[in-house]
């Protein structure tokens, strides 16, 4: 059964911020990306590193559209695991190197100036 669990007051999670909390015996990272909230488990799919403690960053991409030139993109959307630098898109939970693997994501809700995660 899912329930809502208090994460923090909204003032505690400004744009670009992150907070790691323990909910139902799991560590969850909650992120504010451009005013929207996202929640991810604090366990990397690579070697179980605490990925939500990693840097929030952008990344490099290149494709036919950029004429194969490197482009800096997704500033603020990318989480880099502190153990071996694996990149994730915070907004989708997708792992960038392993396209077929993805983190579970959790709904985040705001009531009365407080942030909750539904699990």
């Amino acid at each position: 059964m899912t329930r809502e669990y208090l994460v923090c007051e909204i003032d505690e999670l400004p744009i670009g911020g992150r907070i790691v909390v323990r909910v139902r015996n799991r560590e969850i990272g909650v992120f504010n990306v451009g005013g929207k909230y996202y929640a991810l488990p604090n366990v990397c799919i690579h070697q179980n590193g605490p990925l939500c403690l990693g840097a929030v960053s952008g990344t490099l991409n290149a494709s036919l559209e950029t004429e194969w030139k490197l482009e800096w993109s997704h500033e603020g959307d990318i989480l880099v695991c502190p153990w071996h630098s694996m990149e994730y898109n915070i907004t989708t939970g997708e792992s960038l190197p392993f396209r077929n693997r993805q983190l579970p994501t959790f709904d985040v809700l705001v009531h009365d100036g407080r942030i909750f995660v539904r699990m």
Partner: protein
Amino acid sequence: MPDTDSTLRGPISKKLKEFTVVDMDVHIHETPAALAPYCEMPWRKSLEHLSTVPQRYLDIPGFSPNLSVYPSFPDSGGDRRSTVSSASQMRQDLDSLGIDIGVLFPDALLSHASIKNTDYAVALARAYNRWMVEEWLDSDFSLKGAILAPHHDPHAAAGEIMRYAGHANVVAIYLPTSCVDPLYGHRRYDPIYNAAQDTGLPVTFHSVGAIHPVFPFNLQGFETGFANHIISHPFSLISNLVSLMETGVPVRFPNLRIVFTEGGIGWVPWIMLRMDKEYQERRRDIPFLKDRPSTYVKKMYFATQPIEEPEHMADMATFISLFDGEDSVVFASDWPHHDFDHPNKVLQIPVEDKVLRKIMGGNAIRLLNLNESVT
């Protein structure tokens, strides 16, 4: 940057708690300032001066010449502490990783073979050895040391080996492997292998990513760290292994124990089979071998890190079986470097517990003559 104390809270599995884990490769942070008091003149002057110049990760001019030629972007290198500066910090880190015993290797002096001035290289090796023994090995008995042998002067290297061989916590000899010229099979290195054999200390070939005009050559042709790192580590081990074989080191020094670290283990079956194939045709090039090269490869030791991570870890069990690695693969984490392996990853290889116990600790205990019993 989160400190390791908070980023190292990975789960410790039941097996990890239960098994004796010996880590064949952990790194300590020797700065020029730390080594200066242990260094003879005039080179101490140089280390004192280098203490004042800007330094980057594994890149200090004149001390750890890394020649980084790639662009650098933020947050690409793991947002955590990647150096360990004291024995007590190392002990805490290894506890968090579930590791009982660690064998120490340097950070900056991974590039030691690329230093050109022989007298300076020997002085650096001596300073490092004095510093490691005094500041790390004398304070924590679960930390073991590998003596840096300067390839530039094999007699001086043998002297270092003999000087420290009697120390209870000196368990191996470290041969800096990338950029070495000539390769380690050359007969000029015989004094090192003699000393190793006489003292019973294994020689450990440890690679590093480096651009250098000797083997593994053509690294200057790559434009990314991706390519450099893939090729530099295993190829510097492969080239030196083949060199040892072509001059008969394993036959000429039958009691010498040989270890390869930091290339993973996937390359081992491949080069072993290539050597056997050539031997069948060209035995007379290397008539001193008494049997196929694989006979000798199977007696060498190979450290796991950076362990290959195929989708099915059962494939790693196959790799290991191809060179009878049950008794010769030794766990290594490479802590605290960017590509360290958590022991839990190696524990995922689906082999019997009795084999895992050997890989995680038993083989290293035998190799290093440690007084531990395997649990």
